[in-house]
Each structure stands twice: as C-alpha cells, then as structure tokens.
C-alpha cells in the first residue's frame, strides 16, 4: 500500500517540474525592475541599484545553462579589464571591486604589478574603502595612486598568509565558540574573504551571542545594516539570519571561488531557473514590492485563510451533497430527483461572484463572519459533488449484494446507509480532493467581494501594484496545492478501493 502511495507521488514529479517551468516562464514575462527615485542610466549609483534589483531576480544569469559560471576570480578579472581599458564601465567596476572586497584580493593583488601604471593606481585607490573597512590604514595615506599601490603591495606581502580558507574557517569557528573582540578584529582584516564561512556559521549556530558577532561582522564588510542586537527576541534573530541566508543565496558568486567539480555543477546551478526553483523550494520567494515584506511570510499568514475557507466550503458542500445525492438516487425519476437536478444546474451556472455579491449585499455582513463567504464558496462544488454522489449511489443500489440484503429482509434505511452508501461514498470523498483546487480559485473572487485578507485579496492588490514576486509565488503555490490534492485523492481512492489501485497502475503502464 505504501508502495502504491509512493509510486503515485513519484508520478507527480514530472507534473511539478512542468509546473515550475510554466511559472518560471511566467517570471520571464515580467518587466525588468527599475529602482525608485529615478536617475540617469549613466550614473554609477543608479546602475548599481538596478543591478542589485536585477540580481535579486537572477536576471544576470542565463536561463537554463550557464556556460561560463561567474565566480569571484572571473568577476575581478572582468572588472580589472574594464578599468585597464578605461571604458564607460570603468567607474562602475572600481565601485564593484570595492564591494567584492577582501574575497577578491587574492586574485587581484598578486597581479597588480603586471598592470599599466595608471590602471594600477586607479585600482589601488578604488580599493581604499576595503582597507578602511579592515581598519589597517588612514584615509589620507591612500589618496595618492602611487602610495596606494605601494600600500597594497606591502599589504599583500604581509598578509597573504591570512587569506587562506582553512585559516579563516578556524578563526570563524573560534569566534563562534568563544567570541572576543580580538577575534572579531582578526577576521575584519580578511574582509569579505571570511563571508562564506560567516554565513555557513550563521546557518549552523543557534547561539545568540555568536550570531550577534557574526552578523555584525557580515554587516561591516558588506555595508548592509542587518545584524542581531543584544536583547533581540528569537523571532527577530531568525528573521535576520534568514535575511542573510537569502542575501548570500543571491550574492554567493561574488565571493566564492569555483574549482573543479563545483564549476560543472555551477553551469546548471548558476542559472536563473535553478536558482529560482531552489529558492522557491526553500521558501525564498523574494520580497514583495508592494510592502517590502518577504513573500514567504505573507503567504504564511494569508494562505491559511484561503485554504481554510476552501476546506470549510468543501465540508459544507459535502454535508449537503451527500444526503442530497442519496435522496436523489433513492427517489430516482421522481419529483425530488428532477427538482434537485434543475436546482443544481442553476447553482452550477451561477457565477461565484454574483452569489457572493448577493450574499454580501443582502446578508449585510460584509465585514463580519465567515459563514456567508463559505456558503458562497460551497455553491461552487455543490452540484458536481451531488451528481457524483447520485451516480455512484445508483450504481451501488444496482449491485447484487443489495438485492441479496433486500431478499434477506433488511430494512430499506439499513440497506441504503450500511450497504449502498458505504461503497458509494468512496468516489465522492475522492472527488473532494479534486474539487479543492477549484474552490481555492473561486475563493479569490469571494475574498475580494467580502474583503477578506487572504491570498486572493493580496493577489488583486499585487496585480494593481504589479508586485511580481507575489503573483509568481501564488501561482506556484496554487499549482503545488492542486497537484498535492490530486495525489492525495488518488491515493485515498486506491486506499479505499483496491480495484482502483490496480486500474491506475495498469493505466499508467499503458501510457
């Protein structure tokens, strides 16, 4: 039985892959982001902000295959080349070099000598902010290109030993184990070179004191002001850490050197699709542009509203549909049967938003209570469930065992409930799993009418403000929920009825 359930779940994998592709293609339709406040396209600050926004959506990466995955060395070399050529991007690249910081020094300083003198000077001056962050020098000592170049040459002679991964990892481990200001100072000197290990340590440790030091250090070297303060509550600590992790997820390639196998993996992993899918799978759905909150958090608060409402509506419609279907089947061809059939057709044809609007108007409860929205939603699935119940009940009543029971003198009620309904319920119960997604879709409309702040309401606001991250996340979530419902429903059907199980497996084999 478990084998069957597993097998059915595995069938869903291609579907989920397809879903991710469709939603991914949806994201490629979205317009490129532009920073607020405007600015000219040639201004360095504006370009940096644009780049940042683009990177947050991995637009700097190729879609499906990255033939030249960037790592810190590639980025540094690229920037240096621009500076040497003194083209339009030179200024931007100088800024970038200082952002890449310590992690780039091992790939830059040893080659400084080979550069033409003017470029060497420009780069040495551009790197000044790094030295200031490290706290090893005064501003005025680096103002002159010649002096700056000399400083960096000497710096590398003295300190290159510090820029080795094992040494830095040990330092970070010691900082986590027993944090002192001295150890923090020590790590400050390698600047962003330590970032990889700092983030790794953030991921692993739970100790607030260590996290204070780690996030403070990371904030210092990157210039982002996101750190744990003394006395923060655990929730805020977690938020800060997850903020750093998602930042690292986007910016990792600026600071990490790819070697050997990692380079091959990166050609697939460093793509827009892979980054997006892995991020989505781990709950990193980006920030909502409407209010700047993490989309995942917003989903956590609004999805239960919508899903809960849909579930209640499903229960309500099942509670009405099952008895109604039984009665219709039992009194088949009679007035009751015809009347329900007509009534259900009417319900089936009523637009959800019309029902909701009517209920909201005449119920005068637009801002209170969950009853009316649920009733409005329940009309969506009522017809189909009743029809299913009626059809399967009719089939069950026609079976030989019913006649046997009848012949043995069982009472009508007993036959209907114990003999027929038990079997006839199975398809209806599993149909519920399929109806659930339809209800979720309809809930979008109902929420808007009743002003309930669930996923649908948020989505419509997101459409108004073109909040791409949210729309993508909701579409993805709905598809995943639908697929999950389908699998659950199939598995439940198979659980309840072994014949169906065999049939499904056979059918799958046939395709």
């Amino acid at each position: 039985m478990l084998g069957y359930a597993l097998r059915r779940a595995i069938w869903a994998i291609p579907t989920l892959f397809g879903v991710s592709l469709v939603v991914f293609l949806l994201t490629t339709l979205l317009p490129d982001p532009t920073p607020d406040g405007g600015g000219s396209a040639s201004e360095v600050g504006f370009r940096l902000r644009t780049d940042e926004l683009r990177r947050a959506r991995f637009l700097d990466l190729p879609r499906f295959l990255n033939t030249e995955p960037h790592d810190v060395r590639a980025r540094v070399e690229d920037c240096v080349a621009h500076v040497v050529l003194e083209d339009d991007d030179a200024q931007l690249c100088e800024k970038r070099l200082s952002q890449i910081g310590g992690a780039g020094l091992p790939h830059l300083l040893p080659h400084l000598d080979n550069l033409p003198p003017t470029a060497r000077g420009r780069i040495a001056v551009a790197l000044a902010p790094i030295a200031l962050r490290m706290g090893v020098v005064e501003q005025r000592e680096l103002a002159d290109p010649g002096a700056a170049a000399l400083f960096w040459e000497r710096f590398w002679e003295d300190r290159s030993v510090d820029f080795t991964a094992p040494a830095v990892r040990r330092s970070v481990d010691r900082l986590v184990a027993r944090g002192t200001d001295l150890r923090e100072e020590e790590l400050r000197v390698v600047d962003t070179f330590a970032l990889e290990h700092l983030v790794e340590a953030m991921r692993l440790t739970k100790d607030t004191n260590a996290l204070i030091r780690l996030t403070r250090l990371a904030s210092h070297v990157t210039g982002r002001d996101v750190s744990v303060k003394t006395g923060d509550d655990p929730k805020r600590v977690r938020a800060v850490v997850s903020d750093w992790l998602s930042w690292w997820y986007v910016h990792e390639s600026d600071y990490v050197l790819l070697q050997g196998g990692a380079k091959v993996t990166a050609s697939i992993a460093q793509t827009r699709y892979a980054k997006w899918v892995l991020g989505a799978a781990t709950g990193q759905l980006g920030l909502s542009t409407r209010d700047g909150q993490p989309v995942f958090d917003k989903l956590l608060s609004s999805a239960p509203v919508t899903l809960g409402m849909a579930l209640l509506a499903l229960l309500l419609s099942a509670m009405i549909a099952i008895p109604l279907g039984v009665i219709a089947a039992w009194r088949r061809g009679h007035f009751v049967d015809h009347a329900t059939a007509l009534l259900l057709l009417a319900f089936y044809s009523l637009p959800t938003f019309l029902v909701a609007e009517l209920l909201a108007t005449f119920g005068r409860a637009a801002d209170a209570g969950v009853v009316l929205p649920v009733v409005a939603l329940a009309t969506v699935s009522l017809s189909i469930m009743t029809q299913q119940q009626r059809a399967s009940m009719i089939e069950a009543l026609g079976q030989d065992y019913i006649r046997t029971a009848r012949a043995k003198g069982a009472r009508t009620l007993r036959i209907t409930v114990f003999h027929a309904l038990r079997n006839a319920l199975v398809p209806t119960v599993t149909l519920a799993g399929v109806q659930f997604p339809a209800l979720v879709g309809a809930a979008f409309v109902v929420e808007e009418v009743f002003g309930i702040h669930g996923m649908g309401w948020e989505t419509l606001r997101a459409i108004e403000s073109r909040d791409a991250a949210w729309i993508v996340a909701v579409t993805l979530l709905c598809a995943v929920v639908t697929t999950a419902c389908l699998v659950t429903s199939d598995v439940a059907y198979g659980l309840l009825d072994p014949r169906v199980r065999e049939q499904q497996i056979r059918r799958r084999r046939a395709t």
Partner: protein
Amino acid sequence: MTEPPDDPNRESIPLLLARTSRRAPAGGGDGAPAPAPGPVPPPRSSLRAPSARADKAGTMGYLRTRLGAAGMLVGVMLVMIAIFADMLASDFPIMCKLHGKTWIFPNVTQPAELVALGAEAVDADAEWKLPTLVSHGPSSSTAAPLLPPGAVKGHPFGTDREGHDVFARVVHGTRTYLVFALAAVVTSLLFGGLFGSLAGLFGGATDALVGRAIETVSAFPPLVLVLGIQAAVPKATVATLFLAIALTRWPEVARLVRAEVMQVATRDYVMAARALGASPLRVLRKHIAPNVRGQLAVLGAVGIPAVILIEASLDFLRVGGPLGTASWGETMSEFRDAPGAWWLLAFPGVFLFATIVALNLVGEARRESFDPRAR
C-alpha cells in the same frame, strides 16, 4: 486509453445526467415518447416498485429534451441580440434624413460625419428617422449617472456610474462575450485537437510529452493561471487574456481527442486503411475525425459558458483589461461602488445567468446524444 467510467478525477461529471434505468426516447425522435410496450420489469437498481409517475417512460428524458430545446432557443436569442446589438441600442438611428441626405444604417457604420455632429444633434435635426430600440450607444454618456430604470424615458435599464445606458451596455456586452468566448473555445479546440491527435497517433515520446503538458496545465486552477498571466505580461490586453483562457482550456480537449484517437486507431477499418497505404493524416481526417467530431461539439458547447464565467469574473475583479466597448462583468463591478444601484447587478446578472444556463443545457443535450452512457 479510455478513462474508466468510475474514475471521477479526470472527467467533469456531466450535470443533469438523471439516468433512468430505461432508455430515454431515441435521440431526435418524432414527438412524444412512446410508452414502453408490455409489462415493464422493475428497474434493477431501484429499491421500490416504480411509481406510476416514473413509469411514464422517460419523463426525465422528455423534460431533458425540452430543456435542451429551451436552452437552444435562449442561445439563439442571445446570438441574435449579439448580431443585432446595433439595431437594439446605438447612438444613431437605423435610418434618418439629415440636412437633405438620407443615411442608411448609420448605427452600424458609424459614419465620421455624423460622429462629428454628435448623437444629440443628429437626433434633434433629423427630418425623419427610424430610431433604434434604445437610442444610446454603450459608450455615450449623455444621461445623468446612476438613474434607476424607468426614471427617465429612453433608459429602460437605467444608467451606470458614468451615465452609460445599461441596456446598451448589456446588449453590446452580449456581443463582446459571445464573440470572445467563441474565439477562445475555437482556439482551444484547434490546439487541443492538434496536440491530442499528435499524441494519439504517434504515441511514445510525443504522447508522454503531451501527457505531461496536459497534466501540468491542469495543475493550475484556471482563474489563478489566467490572473497570473494577465498580471505577468508587460501589457495586459484582450489578446493576452484570450491566449491565457485558451491555454487553460486546451488540455481538456487534448485529453479527449487523444483517448478517442487511440481507441479508434486500433479498430479494424483504420488498420485496413493503413494497410491500403493511407497516410496518417488521411486516416485522421477520414476515419478518426468523424468519431471525435461529436464529442468536440459537446466540449465546445460546455466550454463557452466556462469561458464566459472566467471572463466575467475577471471583469468583475477589474483585472481583465479593456475587453471591448462593453462587458457585463464591468457593469456589475460598478455595483460594488454604488451599493444601492441594484440594476447594475440585476440586468447583466440575469443575462449572464441565462447565457450560462442555456449553454449548459445545450451542452448537456449534445452530450447525451453522443454519450451512450448518458441514455
């Protein structure tokens, strides 16, 4: 591959399939259904002896035929309204004589000369005219906003928030919706038919690919997918809406066509045709298509109300983008800003409801004539 009849997960459950154990009168038929000859054995699956009522052969079948006919009638009326929308409501009369010149059908042609003059001037200056039923177009806002029906002569359904005549909006909305839905359904039938028959004919990898594509698209709740696409495209237009809706509809068609093609492809006459050297395309056209055509018609008939529903919902939520000159959903959405103006909800609502019920009835009737299980 055929879907097992007891699998509720894949097929929509037909409504109104009130099956009596006896056969409904044979499709089409000649007038009243004949009572079954001789003593009727009690229906197998009923617990009670059939009452006299149920005994009158196929009450439901009769009713169903009648309902199907009624649905068809309403459907035809709606189509007429859509076609003759300009005769029912327009800024210009059907015919008029103005400044010595006779105009014929200016309501349809909207001549630039008259448009420049303005509807009111034409009305006032015409020597004689044959007016339309309501002499306001869907876009002219000459009246006061939010007039209730009958408050002012010439606005039988009242006016909306911008002073548009609601009757004109509803009548022209019929045209907008029917044209749109028909186009979307035809597109989805074309695509679904194409992919379904490809999968059915070639099998193997093609089939697997199409199968996964079908599953993928059906994994999205239609409204959510359409919302997502409309929100994601840089500029939401009627064209994107149209494609988005067609995208959500094709898997259903493809699934049916694929199953049918696969089933028919194993029949002897198809084998024989193949053996005689007929190309797959010819087999598809001559031998398989006739088998599928009827079912496609059913899907088309039930597809139109489904598309109209989605469309109206989107308009109601005001995310559909500009659809055309007038739409029911748009008018109905204005009710949310003007809660007292019931006519904004009622008239388009009745039209919408009538359209969907009628087309569903037609769809059911069509389905029964092709689905032996439904008899």
